C-alpha cells in the first residue's frame, strides 16, 4: 500500500474524488446509519442522568428531592421523550443487526436469523418487565 492513499507516485493524472462531508444525506440507508450512530448520545444521556441521580441520592434528602423536581420540568420531559425515541431506534436497529454477528448452530442446522432476533426481543421485554415490576412493587 502507498504511504499516502490520496497520491500515487508517477500517476499524478489519476482522478480522485474526495468524499464530501455530507456524503450521508443523499441516501436513506446512509442517513439511517448516521442516525443509528448518533443514538449512542441518548444512551450516554441516560447514563449521565442515572449517575447524577445516584450522586443526589448519596448527598441528602433535599438534594434528591430537588433532583426529582428537576426531572419533572417540561425541558427535562421533552429531552427524555426525544432520548427515549432515539433509544428505541438504537435498540431496534441493533437487535435487527444481531444475526449478522451471530452464526449459531444447533447440531447441523444453523439457527435462523429470525430466531436470533426474536431471542433478543424476548430478553429485552423480560428484563424491562422485571425492572418495571421491581420499581412499581418495591
Amino acid at each position, binding site marked *: *500500500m502507498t504511504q499516502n492513499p490520496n497520491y500515487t507516485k508517477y500517476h499524478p493524472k*489519476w482522478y480522485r474524488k474526495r468524499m464530501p462531508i455530507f456524503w450521508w444525506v443523499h441516501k436513506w440507508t446512509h442517513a439511517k446509519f448516521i442516525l443509528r450512530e448518533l443514538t449512542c448520545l441518548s444512551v450516554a444521556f441516560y447514563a449521565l442522568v442515572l449517575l447524577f441521580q445516584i450522586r443526589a441520592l448519596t448527598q441528602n434528602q433535599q438534594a434528591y428531592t430537588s433532583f426529582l423536581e428537576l426531572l419533572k420540568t417540561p425541558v427535562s420531559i421533552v429531552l427524555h421523550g426525544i432520548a427515549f425515541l432515539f433509544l428505541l431506534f438504537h435498540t431496534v436497529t441493533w437487535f435487527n443487526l444481531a444475526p*449478522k*454477528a451471530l452464526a449459531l448452530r444447533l447440531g447441523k442446522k444453523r439457527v435462523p436469523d429470525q430466531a436470533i432476533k426474536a431471542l433478543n426481543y424476548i430478553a429485552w421485554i423480560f428484563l424491562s418487565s422485571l425492572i418495571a415490576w421491581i420499581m412499581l412493587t418495591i
Partner: protein
Amino acid sequence: MATNITLEVLRYRPEEESEPVYQSYEVPYQKDWVILDALNYIKDTLDGTLSYRWSCRMGVCGSCGMMVNGAPELTCASFLEKYLPGPVRVEPLVNFPVIRDLVIEMSDFMEKLKRVSPWIIREQEKPLSDGEYLQTPAELGDYEQFSMCINCMLCYAACPVYGLEPTFVGPAAIAIAQRYNLDNRDQGNKQRLEVLSEDNGIFECTLVGECSVVCPKDVDPAGAIQRYKVVAAATWWKSLLMPWGR
C-alpha cells in the same frame, strides 16, 4: 414503448481535461439489453474513444462494475428496462482513482487481497501419496457462501468507511479471509487474525451494511466482518485470561 434511451456517461480524458465531464449518448432501447450492451453499442457505433472494462457478460468475471444512477452495479446484470425512461447515469466505481473514463485503478484492492493470504495454509503439508484432503458437504457449506466472491469491488464502492479511510482492508478481502478461515483444510486463522485485527482491519468497519446489499453474489461481507469481530474479541479475552494458552 420507448425506442431510445439516453446514457449520461462520465468521461475523463486526462490529456484533455482535469475534471471528468458527462457526455450524453442516445442508444436504441431493447428489452433484452443490459447497460453493458448499451456501452458496447456506443463503443462500436457512436464513439470509439470510450474506455471501460468488461469481459464475460455473465456476472462471473467481475470486471464491469460501475456506478449506475449512483449505485454500484455489474453493468452486465443491470437491464436498461429498469432505468426507463432514462436518462441513465453511468460513472466509474467511486472510492477508487479513475485512470480514464469508466476505468478505475484497482491495485490497492489487489494488494489488500494478497495481505489476507487467500489460499489454504497448512502447518505441515501431508505427502502427496496420502491423497487429497477430503471434505464433507457440510464442511464445504461452512465457507461456500464466502467463496462466491468474484472480486468485482462493488462492495468497496458501496463502503463509506473505505471512501473515508482508504487504508481500510475492506469488505471483500475480509470475506475472502473468512472463506479460508472457515475451510477445515486451512490452518492459517492465526496468521490472518494478526493482519485483520490491526487498526486497518475488521474494527475499522462500523457496519453500514451496504456492502452486503450491493453484492451481486450474496456473499454478505458485512456478516463476515461482524462474525470475525466476535472471534477476534473472544481470542483477545482468551489470551488475557489464559496467557499460558496458545
